[in-house]
């Protein structure tokens, strides 16, 4: 079922690429429309799975990836519609296509172990997915910032100069996205910790027992939290903006993706709920 939104995201990607190249209004409309339709179909798919298994399919990395792609599609569409900027699409949609391949291939919904039957668990996962999606946008905004910065420094005005908003606008968008993401990241982590304190003493599940600061998944996400916290602090305390903030945002998101996909599948004893 996850293949249909994948196909639509792929169409959107091609259309965004054509739009980036030609800047024809028609290709831009096709891009946005196919992304909107993709997100709607994706909503339907997640809804069907929820009805099928009786809970939102957030258990396990595969389900979480599908939900992440969905949140990212909505977050990107919100940004596109509020800023009227389509140039980011060519960077953000491929990420969605690549990630959506995983749920489209495996295509199964993980069963929910009893220990996860909790409101806390849903808030934990959902907050983190919102944070990840916002950081993904921040990362793409940062990459475009650096590309435009390079063109302006090199005095060679090319594709990005003609297509992107100004440096200050991009810097401001990055700052807002990181702040927003940080709030949800912190919330997600705090809720996870509260839940853990509640269930760990009596839990027999080895995965719950493995949840500690040294577990790779938990350790890496805390590292991420430190990077983003530092980025926010440095902006206020030493006026770090522009390129420095952009690099921090990109590094933070790279660690995050590493944690989300490879570590999520192979590197953790505590979060392997498939």
């Amino acid at each position: 079922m996850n293949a249909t939104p994948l196909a639509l995201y792929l169409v959107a990607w091609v259309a965004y690429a054509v739009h980036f190249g030609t800047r024809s209004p028609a290709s831009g409309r096709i891009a946005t429309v196919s992304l909107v339709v993709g997100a709607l179909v994706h909503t339907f798919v997640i809804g069907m799975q929820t009805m099928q298994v009786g809970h939102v399919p957030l258990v396990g990395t595969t389900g979480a990836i599908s939900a992440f792609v969905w949140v990212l599609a909505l977050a990107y569409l919100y940004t596109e519609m509020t800023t009227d900027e389509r140039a980011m699409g060519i960077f953000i949609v491929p990420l969605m296509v690549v990630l959506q391949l995983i749920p489209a291939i495996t295509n199964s919904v993980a069963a929910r172990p009893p220990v996860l039957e909790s409101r806390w668990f849903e808030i934990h996962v959902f907050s983190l997915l919102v944070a990840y999606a916002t950081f993904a946008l921040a990362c793409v905004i940062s990459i475009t910032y650096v590309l435009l910065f390079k063109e302006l420094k090199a005095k060679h005005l090319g594709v990005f100069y003609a297509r992107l908003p100004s440096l200050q606008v991009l810097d401001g968008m990055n700052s807002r996205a990181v702040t927003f993401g940080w709030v949800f990241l912190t919330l997600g982590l705090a809720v996870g910790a509260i839940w853990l304190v509640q269930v760990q003493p009596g839990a027999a599940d080895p995965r719950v027992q493995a949840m500690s600061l040294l577990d790779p998944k938990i350790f890496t996400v805390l590292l991420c939290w430190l990077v983003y916290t530092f980025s926010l602090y440095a902006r206020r305390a030493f006026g770090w903006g522009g390129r420095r903030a952009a690099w921090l945002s990109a590094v933070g998101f790279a660690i995050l993706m590493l944690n989300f996909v490879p570590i999520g599948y192979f590197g953790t004893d505590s979060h392997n709920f498939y």
Partner: protein
Amino acid sequence: MHLFLLGASHHSAPVDLRERIDFARRGIPEALEEVVDATGLAEVVILSTCNRAEIYTHSEAPRPVAERLSTFMSAFHDVPEPELAPHLYGRQGSDAARHLFRVVAGLDSLVVGEPQILGQVKDAFAIAAERGFTGAALNRLFHTSFTVGKRVRHETGLGEGAVSVSYAAISLARKIFGDLAGRRALVVGAGEMAELTATHLRSQDVGRIGVANRSAARAAALAAEVDGLAVPWEEITAELTTTDIVLTATGAPRWLLTREQVADAMRPRRDRPLFMIDIGLPRDVEPAASEVEQVFLYNIDDLQSIVRENLARRQSQVDRAELMVREEVDAFMRWLRSRGAIPTVVALRRHFERTRRQELERLAPKLAALSPAAKSRVEEVTRLLVEKLLSSPTQQLKAAPNEDAVAADADTISRLFGLDEDDEPAERRRAPGERAAAGAAGRSSAARNR
């Protein structure tokens, strides 16, 4: 259905002549009145900008307007005809439409793709339309030209990229800072370029423009001109810490600002960008200053090469724009020809309708016995028959491929059905003088109504 244009532009006439034939000097409304009086035309639009003076006309019947228009122009502007005539060009039919569309698209402009022409043509059309000097043909022609102008701007890069040095500097500033409102600028030195850029900055709502010069009096003078603030010469480096845009144009033999000074100024600014425009010759800012983080340093050569690139890019879009113009000219001419066929279509319909009526009248005694319902049925059937018989000829007449074909069709139809003898369309019956008078009367009543 005869479109004609007479005019002169920067392609055909030198600037001193263009100045003398500028319609705006005596007022375009007055010029419109006089053209109509002099030529007897009912549809006229005058386009007058600093680069062109053009008269667009339309008449239903062919008229020798070229000479009359040329005589009018020479008389109106008081330029001897032998002096003016070699610089005028005339275009008719599709060539006139193509010319207007190319003008509006910016293809005929001095700087290809310049954006103001669309607004100027809109104004010219509005002046004529408000006073009743335009009819269906010119209305359609000009509205189509606005569509062409918008299409070319949106769908090609013809109008993109700054093509003057001072505007290139403003565009760069906007790409760095976004909105320039409230930003601080500092102009060091004087000269035409400094003044021009400062004026552009002022029009962008820059918050404060500081002006520094070795001579305090000149600083004060330029400051007054651009609504800025004179800054003492010694405070330039201090000023750098709070300024966003710096323009230097002193041409002093030594660096006005070294890399060190710029780096020092950047420290308290942290990551707030500084845009430096160095148009001094020799340069005022040490080139190595551009290595400092968040400093964007452009000198006059950089700006000029941006302008050159933009011009080249515009040139590369010309073919696409020309293609759009061609499409729109074809569509417009199809419409105009279909309109040209209208008198024939009307005459043909009238002829058929009259034949139908005559036959019904002739049969009236025989039909008298019929019930009212049956009578109305006969009426309906005969009408539908005429409609059906005429539908294909009507379509074919409107789809004629060119003006000659329209005329040939009209002749053939008239001959075959004897149209000329029994009824001529109202428009053709009126003498040209009468029509002009009627047009003028319509106009003055329209003017009174406003």
